[in-house]
């Protein structure tokens, strides 16, 4: 594809891992902005719900971006493979913040209410399942675990497709009325996932 990565690494002296860490830290900016604005009282009368919703949206956005990397490479020839891991970890980070605000700040770790929520309310069940998928994927994203898992790493990380579908449903049914944005995101998930159904570089042969 492009010989960009080698030459630019030599130019600015950053190893790929360092660049991944920098990208990750850079995109913690929305978190830092919200936190600062919230502490300064600039997020309106209910800063906790503002953060809850904002972090949830960022989680889905980063999940979407991470799913776009492979089709971009295969069908557009744009190789951003280096950014896939930090994007996935950002999705996990924002999902964890989203859940922290719900469980701790809003529900005060009220186990009775939380148990009812995750056993009776479909929209919260979809959300929890998404997180339960993202958690092991985040934990197995280090070089060591990738090596240790060997050929099992790839099928394990394909679970992210399920996470994207569950997250889309969670977002679509979270509101009192239908909102446009969740449906746009769900459509993008469908598009990015359907690229995976197209087989690479094979022309069907006539028998």
């Amino acid at each position, binding site marked *: 594809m492009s010989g960009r990565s080698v030459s630019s690494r030599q130019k600015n002296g950053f190893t790929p891992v360092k660049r991944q860490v920098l990208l990750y830290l850079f995109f913690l900016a929305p978190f830092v902005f919200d*936190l600062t604005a*919230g*502490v300064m009282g600039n*997020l*309106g*009368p*209910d*800063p*906790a719900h503002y*953060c809850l919703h904002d972090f949830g949206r960022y989680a889905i956005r980063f999940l979407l971006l991470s799913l776009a990397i492979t089709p971009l490479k295969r069908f557009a020839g744009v190789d951003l493979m280096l950014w896939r891991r930090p994007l996935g970890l950002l999705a996990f980070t924002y999902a964890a913040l989203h859940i922290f605000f719900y469980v701790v*700040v*809003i529900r*005060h770790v009220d186990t009775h*209410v939380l148990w*009812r*929520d995750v056993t009776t*309310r479909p*929209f*919260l069940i979809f959300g929890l399942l998404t997180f339960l998928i993202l958690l092991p994927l985040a934990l197995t994203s280090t070089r060591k675990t990738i090596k240790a898992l060997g050929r099992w790493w790839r099928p394990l990380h394909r679970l992210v497709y399920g996470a994207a579908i569950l997250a889309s449903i969670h977002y679509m*049914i979270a*509101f*009192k*009325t*239908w*909102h*446009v944005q969740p449906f746009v995101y769900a459509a993008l998930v469908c598009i990015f996932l359907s690229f995976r159904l197209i087989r690479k570089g094979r022309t069907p042969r006539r028998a």
Partner: protein
Amino acid sequence: AEAGQIDGRGWPAPDKPTSLNDITHYNNFYEFGTDKSDPEALSGDFVSRPWRVQVDGLVDHPKVWDIDELIRQFGQQDRLYRMRCVEAWSMVIPWNGFELGALLRAVSPKSEARYVAFTSVVRPEQMPGQRGGAFSLTWPYTEGLRLDEAMHPLTILATGVYGQTMPAQNGAPVRLVVPWKYGFKGIKSITRITLTDRQPPASWNVMAPNEYGFYANVNPAVDHPRWSQASEQIIGQGSLFYTARKPTQLFNGYAEQVSGLYKGMDLNKDF
């Protein structure tokens, strides 16, 4: 009801009023947008005077009032009420207004009148939320009360808050306030009040009858299908990392005054 101040009429009232800033910057008024900051941000074009309120239907003396005439005729009392939103948050709001019952008595309901239907304004050119397509509520927003609920002295038509003319985002120039019911019953920017003999359509109830009942009485024992109603977040008392909560009271604390209206009814079924 909890101990606290006594309001103008002698009803038990919740204590700490929410700040005017919070009351006017955290609103559900989908005619302007679905975000709680939308009504304040997007209501700048809304014109609430001159304004006419038509009162008709099964009454002996139907009448159309100009809003200022209405305020002159029925006066303005102070009512400090807790507003409990169906989304499980609450505020304490010092309303100014008059009893709906006084207005209804002035038009003399006929004996067959059993319900009161309310209609809100449709002005897509001034209300950006009404320009949305199939994704939102349908307009006009409508609501309804049983006649005995409408005649209850706690039920008011509010024309102001904190002694100020009603801000656009809170339902200018006149809105319904029924303190023992979820906030969505409090239809805003009312243009028409019609007495009928059958249960009128109520916007949220029509859109999702399993989630929003016609009665919509505040009840900690009946959950919304997607969240618990057992407690509520007190807007304006928390911070970024701490939300103030309190247990929700049956009929929002007004059980003593209103439970008689629902004698013999199954509140789980008629929620």
